[in-house]
């Protein structure tokens, strides 16, 4: 995945395994389960060996653009395990993200305690909707980059550390990754919200908060309020109405919780168990534990039979 940002979409057929590699693979599969690679193989071979012959295929090997896929290479065609909306809002002290903790398997509410708000480094936060496995892959990739940055920085100590990518850099990098994957017709099926701060030219954290979004084809933009998926239809208009640039933390949190509650009422794939996360100038990244939202079902429209309400609607 890390190479996806660097490689150009035009590729030659350099991935076809040689007969030597095939023979090894055949013996390897006879004695071990697919797709684990064995110690017989060198690291150079492992890349092609991880190409499984199972229908899932491997996302590390992608077809050149404009040609048919070689056999064994599947591309993502639809999301399977999905998360719903992520909401983001800038406020006085920084940026706040909110999401529920549900991962749906189609219409089954399969994982009710999934984490969709993930810290990347000490000053950047991402929230992802869409395919959960792709979100985990993105999280791995970004955290691996953050680790490399920390290890190769001028100083190992965090106070002096300006080597970590700020939110805007993470957003730009992620956009390149998503674009490259979509150009190979094998997208990471996610809408990712990136929250944090900008960076000044000298590397110090800027005063200005940053909130940006990247979708699965690489459409990237920033704004003061963002929402993915269903949130764009239901929560975004409400948030735009109530937004002020100098909102206090309590106000921002209340706005996000209200939006999540309304999403729970109206989005079939939402849950009232939610998480809130914030990035502040002094406090860094803070992700809350999941908690339940109160919901109110005594609204007349929910309770009364529509035919009895005297209005024109209903069954």
């Amino acid at each position, binding site marked *: 995945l890390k190479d996806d940002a660097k490689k150009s979409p035009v590729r030659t057929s350099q991935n076809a395994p040689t007969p030597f590699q095939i023979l090894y693979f055949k013996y390897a599969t006879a004695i071990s389960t697919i797709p684990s690679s064995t110690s017989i193989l060198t690291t150079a071979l492992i890349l092609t060996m991880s190409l499984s*012959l199972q229908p899932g295929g491997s996302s590390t090997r992608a077809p050149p653009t404009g040609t048919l896929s070689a056999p064994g290479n599947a*591309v993502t065609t639809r999301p399977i395990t999905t998360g719903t909306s992520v909401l983001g809002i800038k406020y006085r002290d920084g940026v706040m993200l909110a999401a529920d903790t549900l991962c749906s398997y189609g219409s089954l509410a399969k994982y009710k305690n999934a984490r969709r708000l993930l810290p990347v480094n000490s000053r950047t936060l991402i929230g992802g909707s869409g395919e959960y496995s792709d979100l985990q892959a993105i999280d791995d990739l970004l955290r691996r980059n953050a680790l490399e940055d920390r290890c190769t920085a001028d100083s190992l100590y965090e106070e002096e550390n300006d080597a970590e990518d700020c939110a805007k850099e993470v957003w730009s990098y992620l956009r390149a990754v998503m674009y490259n994957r979509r150009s190979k017709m094998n997208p990471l099926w996610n809408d990712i919200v990136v929250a944090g701060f900008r960076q000044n030219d000298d590397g110090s954290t800027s005063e200005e908060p940053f909130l940006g979004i990247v979708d699965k*084809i690489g459409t990237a933009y920033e704004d003061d309020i963002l929402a993915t998926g269903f949130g764009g239809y239901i929560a975004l208009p409400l948030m735009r109405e109530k937004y002020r640039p100098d909102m206090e933390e309590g106000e921002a949190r209340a706005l996000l919780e209200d939006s999540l509650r309304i999403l729970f009422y109206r989005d079939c794939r939402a849950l009232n168990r939610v998480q809130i996360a914030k990035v502040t100038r002094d406090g860094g990244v803070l992700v809350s534990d999941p908690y339940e939202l109160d919901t109110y079902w005594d609204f007349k429209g929910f309770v009364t039979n529509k035919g009895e309400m005297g209005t024109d609607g209903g069954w």
Partner: protein
Amino acid sequence: PSSRKIPSRNQTPTSPNPHATTMTSFLSATAAVRSRNGEKCLPIHNSEGGATISVSFDGQNLAIGTGKYPTASYHDDVGIDHGITQAPWERRFSPYEFNGGTTLAISGKDYAVVAADTRLSSGYEILSRNISKLHPLTEKCVLGSAGCKTDVDQLRSVLDIKMKVYAHNHRKPMATPSVAQMLGNTLYYKRFFPYYAFNVLAGVDSEGKGAVYSYDAIGSFERTPFSASGSGQSFLIPLMDNVISHKNRLDEKRDLEAEEVVEIVKDAFITAGERDIYTGDAVEIMIIRSDGIQKELFQLKAD
């Protein structure tokens, strides 16, 4: 791969299916099936170590939902609604998305005016109301692009890099007609997986005269007195034919000042915004002259 076939020691001469063999080579297995029926396939190893041929569908030809739908086509523009009324999982992944927007550029004697609305849409949703579609490439040249924002952003990055390399090699910034040619070549380079970008290029040439170039998605271009592209182009082009090119008018044609052209552009975007759902929110207007670029932001209806 199809020519490489390792002979198998296990081949049975009296198998019911003349094409079925046990293969020792992954490649020859797939080649055999593909040559038999042209389908994509993958061999499945059984526990004895041999391989049997099985045909399965991979992502490319998997049909989800009802009915057939077209094979690989670059533009998902199925009709006037840009495919948005189809259910999201009944069509397969499209690398393109229409993000809307309109751009307009008009050239004058010693200036060029370029304008674009600031709305970013996806389907029937407004994603953002203040995204810029204008991108200055040099101090004398601005690129306005509508279409698929991710491709537009990529195109801009590619052009910026090429302009930097040019400036390093030639020790001067690129002249506008050269930029025009380079943009055309860059678009054609991706002829078989195009940038879904509808561009107008506006600037002043080396003599100081206004220059406007119109493009299509694969790089055919032409220098024109004015150019409009994007979702609202059908509303703008006829209006510009009358007002700028002076077609079908009996009064005398005269050269327009830059300020007059800016007023015409504002009226034009109000017109387009009235009827085109993807145009609205605000118009970013730039006047390009030999001595620099002036900017203005004009608010439109937000509906």
